[in-house]
């Protein structure tokens, strides 16, 4: 009888030790949907110095721009492929990056008040905009969106908080959102995205809301207010929309991602503040990847996390 009890105790001990071994320090990879992470602090290829914008190319490759003024391309698993640098970086670095259907890459060169257009090899093929607050001028442009007809939409701030529309040949068409939009002026529109239905979603960051416009610039509605719950935002800095209409909002101040239905209803959120995997620190951008995965630019942690919550 004693023998049996002792053996059982030892077996229980083993089980405890192994459970401990298996449970310790690897929760992020198992519990909360993180399926990978890449980057790290550095200037070498594949590392980041405070990444701020992300976009997924048509073939699934990922582009990330960081505060070293580099655009880096990675394969969907996060392996480094290629990079190029901005022509000038002394005044500041870009905060927005968008891939056109034809493969061209539009970079909001924020502190130079212009939009730069690169081909997929990183060659500068065009640019538009100069500093100012008139038509065809920018003050700190933040993001670019392109509709099905090739028209380009650019958000900007610093007194110019508005959206400007440009022809496919980079000719200024119109500006909108300058006056009050549903009670408040736009305050640092930080990101743009256009859904299948032709609605322009604008992350009105410092008003902590998402504003929807028609492509002609008419206001449809505004979603959310400041807060940490569902239907609430803290500094939404990026928006991406999947083919099925699901909207992904990246909250810079809330350290989380927020999924919205095509109608703008909150579905779920993910993330909390911190340094571990599965946690975010000042995320500036997020984008849908293949297989329902999401890439989130975890800026302060200088990495990109791949999640499938």
């Amino acid at each position, binding site marked *: 009888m004693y023998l049996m009890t002792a*053996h059982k105790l030892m077996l229980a001990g083993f089980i405890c*030790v192994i459970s401990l071994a298996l449970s310790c320090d690897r929760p992020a990879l198992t519990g909360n949907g993180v399926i990978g992470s890449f980057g790290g602090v550095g*200037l070498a290829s594949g590392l980041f110095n405070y990444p701020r914008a992300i976009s997924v190319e048509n073939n699934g490759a990922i582009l990330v721009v960081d505060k070293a003024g580099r655009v880096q391309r990675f394969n969907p698993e996060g392996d480094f492929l290629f990079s190029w640098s901005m022509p000038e970086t002394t005044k*500041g670095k870009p905060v927005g990056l968008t891939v056109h259907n034809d493969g061209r890459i539009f970079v909001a060169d924020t*502190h130079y008040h212009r939009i730069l257009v690169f081909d997929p090899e990183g060659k500068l093929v065009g640019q538009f905009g100069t500093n100012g607050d008139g038509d065809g001028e920018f003050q700190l442009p933040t993001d670019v969106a392109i509709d099905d007809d090739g028209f380009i939409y650019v958000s900007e701030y*610093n*007194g110019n908080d508005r959206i400007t529309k440009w022809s496919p040949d980079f000719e200024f068409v119109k500006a909108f959102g300058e006056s009050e939009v549903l009670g408040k002026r736009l305050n640092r529109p930080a990101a743009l995205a256009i859904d299948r239905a032709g609605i322009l979603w604008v992350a009105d960051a410092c008003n902590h809301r998402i504003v929807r416009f028609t492509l002609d610039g008419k206001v449809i509605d505004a979603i959310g207010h400041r807060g940490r719950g569902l239907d609430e935002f803290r500094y939404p800095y990026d928006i991406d929309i999947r083919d099925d209409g699901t909207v992904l909002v990246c909250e810079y101040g809330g350290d989380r991602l927020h999924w919205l239905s095509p109608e703008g209803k909150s579905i779920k959120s993910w993330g909390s*503040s911190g*340094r571990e995997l599965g946690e975010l620190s000042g995320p500036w951008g997020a984008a849908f990847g293949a297989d329902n995965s999401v890439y989130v630019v975890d800026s302060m942690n200088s990495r990109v996390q791949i999640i499938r919550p």
Partner: protein
Amino acid sequence: MILLALALPIEFDEPVWLWLCLLVPLLIVTSRRSLAGLDPVRRYAALLLRSALVIVLACCLAGLQRVQRNDDLTVIFLMDRSHSVQAMQDEQEHFMREASKNISADDRVGVIDFARHAFLEQQPLKGGYVIPPGRFPIMQGTDRTDVAAALRLAMAIFPHDTAKRIVLLSDGNDNMGNLLEEARRAAADGIPVDVVPLHYKHQNEVYFERVIAPTHAQKGEQVPVRMVVHTDRATTGTLLLYVNGQLLTLPKESTALSLQKGDNTFVITMPVQTTGAQTFEAVFRPDDESQDTIALNNSASAFTFVSGPSRVLLITSNADSDSVLAAALESEGVGVELRDVAELGQFDLLQMVSYTSIILSNLSASNFTDDQQRDLVTYVKDMGSGLIMLGGDESFGAGGWIGSPVAEIMPVSFEIKHKRVNPRGALVIISHSCEIPRGNYWGKEMAKRSVDTVSSQDYVGVLAYTYSPGGENWEVPLDLATNKAAVKAKIDRMQIGDMPDFGATMKMALRELTVGRGKDAAQKHVIILSDGDAAAPSNALVQDFVRNKITVSTIAIGWGGHVMQSTLNDIAKKTNGKFYPARNPKQLPQIFSKESKVIKRPLIIDEPFMPSVLDAHSELIAGVDVGDLPQLGGMVLTSPKDNPNVIIPLIRPTDDGEDPVLAHWQYELGKTVAFTSGQWEVWGGQWTSWSKFAKFWAQVVRWTMRQDLPANFDTYTRIDGDTARIVIDALDKDASYLNNLQLTTRVVNPSSVTLPVKFVQTGPGKYEASVPVDQAGQYLANVQIRHNEKYLGTLRTGVSVPFSPEYRDLMPNEAMLRQVSEITNGRWLNEIPEEAGVFKHDLPPSESKRPAWDWALAWLLLPIFLLDVSVRRLASWLAFSIAVEFVVLIVLLFGMDFRYASWSHLFGAFVVAELVGWAVRFRHIGPFYNYLTHGVTALASTGQRSEASLGQLKSSRNRAKDDQQTESVYKTPLYETDESLQLSDGDAQQKFDVEGSRREERADKSKGVSLTDSLGGATNDKEKDAPRGDKKASENVDNEDATSRLLRAKRRARRDMDEDKKD
């Protein structure tokens, strides 16, 4: 053990401890007896474990280290960015880029660039050279080359576990630090320095060798200024001579020069008309600029101290008001020069020492640059001069002097310790991250600076957007600035994030200043530090600030060119604050001095009072009849310094203390005076008409004045490379040598840093000192001369370093580079990067040692100890094997660091532990097997056992009957029946007979060990054999009568008792 260390990758820190291993044989001998009771296998296992225990312990004490050998290579490039090779940056970048191509994946590349300072541009990283062409930051301090600093930095950042190589790209013209010493250090560390020499030769060069002027002269004397110009080839040009910054008009024949190859000397003689330091600066302009490569070396300067009557400088911002004081001093025979602060121009230490004392009349700190404030301190403490600060609404604490270097040397503290100082000021700093390089660093420096300038009675708080959790936070909650060091430490720790908008933080500031801690403050002020790219606050919020009279000043940090000024300008304008576009960091101190004044109004007492005498023995008022001191109209509040040297002759008495009006003390060599009232037109109307006004001030000023007893000694100076030599020839009136003089020297470099310099007597009446001169500018020396403790006088001299030796380098210094390469066993590399072989793996592999004794202590010593106990105490092999298994598993799991191990490794560890466990219990597997199969066999044999049991019961009954028939008086003991039952059951316990049980009981009592009992294990083999013998005996039991059994039992008990006694 040593041999083992040679074979294995381990080493010992102090191998002497390994002698402890000699204890092993001793242990074996002594343990044999104590372990005699165990069976041989356990005994040998225990001996082995004990020996291992001692060996591991010895290894731990000897400092066991793991040695890791690694073939990877780290190369750090040192890139020379000094002026002499400025044109060769592209070549250097090209070399580094090309040489780093095709390196193996595990090799690392680091880059350091250097001139006066060394900077790390690329951490040693895998993945090659990653700096894009032309992306090196702008280098400051290119006027010097400090290769040693770069070498030092490189050695500090090498990863410890790779082979190391330094590649030095330079012209070898090192003019700071000690390169060869650093090279020897690298050689000692086994780091070769490969050298890539940068070749150039300036063919056409003209430079000023030196300007020589006499160190001292008398006013009105003719002074010869000697100039030496060097040229590589004959050339012509123009000579310009500036005296105290004014261009001297000279006849054309003196200025149009025709130079011959080599050194050319010219002399211009001129009279000196003003006293004090006269600076002569000579500039040569070649007619054909192509004949000169480096323009920075075309000028040189020298200075002469011109003796004359001593003078005092009165600096003011209100010359009308202070002319009364100047006139009063003149009337008492004190020479005064009254100057408006706006017209000070270049006001450096050399200018200052022309005056024996300086008076600052109602001037705020913002009137002086940081350098000038430092110079004022040097002027007092090292040059032995005087400084008087007069009060006013712009002076002392109200003038932003709190926290400045000048505050240190004054006899009063500008901070108020009075509890009655009310109302207070409140300052909130909003810090935003800045996009420019080192923007956040400057943001923090400025925040700290502003904390310095507030009084400890003011509120201060810092707001910033920080991460984790992201958002606006009070990094320093608004509170009294009593512990500034703690506040500054908090600022240093801030991780300033990119603030999306100013509105959120401004709202927090507004709340705290209106309904929070700062609501009672009289002055409420907010400073925003930013590059301006956050979103603007709403108009309503800005109006709230205006309504609550909270001013907001904004400082745009952006000397890189990027400042979004419009938002910042707007905020400041609307809230009645000020907008400062700071274009370089040097502007910041003045901005803060101006800003801090905003919350300094409470320090001013604007009401008349009668000053009274506190210390009538003070030298400043001695002899002045102070019985009829007139009324003063106001003053600035200060508090006396807690120092016995501070003397306070005049005060303003109040209900709860005394406010200093006049205070003075000696500060090192100089003297300072604080007079906290002033601005005569407003506060001092009655004073200026006081009959003793002139006498009083003349006495005060005279007390502070430097005692210039000119020592009539010849002095001359000479610059020799990095060293200036000052020579003094000391003769007395009779022209005989003065020996054994005591010379107290203070030498101040152009950055106002006092250098440790000592004069040494090198001959009869000859004294020499060497001064390291590594900066261009004026070096001033103040020498106090004593002979046999008698003060003979003060001598001022100095040298002017015209330009850095960097601008004199016309060709590379290959000899120096070769020396570095030879000392470190480095190579002289080909300038063609592909052929340089920078990443050739021809260095011995690196060895990194990591202490392993702590690991051995935790994961070997403890398990071995446990095993040692188990092998002796755990009677059951099964239990022992489980213990072994457990220990092995624990050691493996922690040895591989299970948190980061893969699944396969974890599974492997489990399998290994199981294998070891099963190996131990292999011979004794039967009982465990029985235990596992007990249920099945029990079921299968239920029928047979029932029959057997019945049979046994029957036979028992028959035996009982037989016993009764023998009419025995004793009953058959019950245990025999039990025993027979147990035997047929086949249980382990059946093997123990009665005697065995008793023996066990005795063992338990004598040893107090309950492990066997509690674990239910078997005892040793002898004990196990016993039941077998007794079983046969029990078969004969029936044949023996009860009496004989009793007798046998009695004998056995007696024997056992005897044995117990022996024990």
